[in-house]
């Protein structure tokens, strides 16, 4: 009988052993914020030099008045006064990224003469481009392409991400001295801005 009682107590002691006065369990809550950047699909006029007006920008096209490029005699306008416009749109980025600007023509180029330009004429005017987050001193600045397909890339590196912020593109026509008349016709360039997040 004494043995039975002793066994009974031992059994109770076994049941009580695993528990303690306190016990805890933890669960982690996890998730991921994907790297994300966006650019505006449309742009609005923001500012310009005195000789450029807002009405010259429509859709995604800046139409430069011919008088700012060449005079009535067909000679290129030569001036140190830049012809420039700044357009703006809301964009966003939550991580490190690169900004790349690519010029399809390498400047303002005469469309019809790209294959076999006649000698003795000017068919190209240099352009200068900026692409940067608004009020930031970094980005692609003063990019002057010299050949079709030229591009420049700025690496944002470990700077603070811009978040939701305006993105500015500034386009300027450089009116360098020339020694030949300009070919008549339409001059164009197409600017492509690309933001890439780090892989």
């Amino acid at each position, binding site marked *: 009988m*004494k043995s039975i*009682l*002793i066994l*009974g*107590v031992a059994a*109770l002691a076994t049941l*009580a052993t*695993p*528990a*303690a*006065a*306190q*016990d*805890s*369990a*933890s*669960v*982690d*809550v*996890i*998730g*991921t*914020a*994907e*790297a*994300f950047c*966006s650019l505006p699909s449309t742009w609005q006029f923001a500012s310009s030099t005195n000789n450029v007006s807002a009405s010259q920008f429509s859709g995604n096209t800046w139409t430069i008045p011919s008088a700012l490029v060449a005079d009535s005699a067909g000679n290129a306008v030569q001036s140190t006064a830049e012809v420039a416009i700044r357009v703006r749109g809301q964009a*966003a*980025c*939550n*991580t490190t990224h690169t900004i790349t600007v690519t010029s399809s023509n390498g400047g303002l180029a005469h469309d019809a003469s790209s294959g076999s330009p006649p000698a003795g004429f000017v068919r190209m005017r240099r352009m200068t481009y900026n692409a940067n987050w608004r009020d930031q001193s970094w980005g692609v600045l003063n990019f002057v392409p010299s050949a079709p397909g030229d591009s420049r890339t700025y690496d944002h590196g*470990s*700077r*603070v*991400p811009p*978040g*939701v912020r305006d993105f500015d593109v500034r386009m300027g026509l450089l009116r360098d001295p020339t020694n030949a008349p300009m070919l008549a016709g339409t001059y164009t360039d197409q600017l492509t801005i690309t933001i890439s*997040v780090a892989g």
Partner: protein
Amino acid sequence: MLILFGSDDMFHRLKLVTVGIAALAVSGVAHANEVSAEIELGSTVIGACSLGSPNVTEINLGDLSGPDGLLAASLKVPTTVGTAVIADAWCNTSHRLTIEGQPMTLETAKPYAQPAYMTRHITFDAKLVGWAAPVGFRPRSGSDQAFLEWPEARAAPAAGLRLDISKLETLTAARAEQPNLMLEAGSYRGRVTVTLATN
């Protein structure tokens, strides 16, 4: 005969007492028709609490950001977006159930302070269901908690204690809730710890 449960030490003492009683019984045979003796046994079950392992150690909410880089609207709703179950939860005496933890926090260290327009911390509703009453809290600073005092023993129902996560919101660097903060890219991790402790 009163029978209580006792410790080993106590039984050593009881053994001596029992032997003494038996000797009295033998010597009393010639003098009485009926004899009796009482044996008292005593013991104590220590107050204890126990929590089993959660069915998951991580509640993975996946991609936290929406198409605009902000916290996904689907995660901000009061509806449960993630669940874990902790089985085998019980306390055999009066106790306290505590839930505490840290908000979801960007795991990657950055070389700059958290920008005012972005977030690295996300709070959420963490609610325990299955005890005497639901217990919930929103982790912000890391020292937040909620608890429930209960005056008697209690065990969770068969399914166990259920931890529900819902209603996520972004936090400023000062850990104040502020919607429409862009999430910095990367992995986020928070933690909820459940503790049962005797009083």
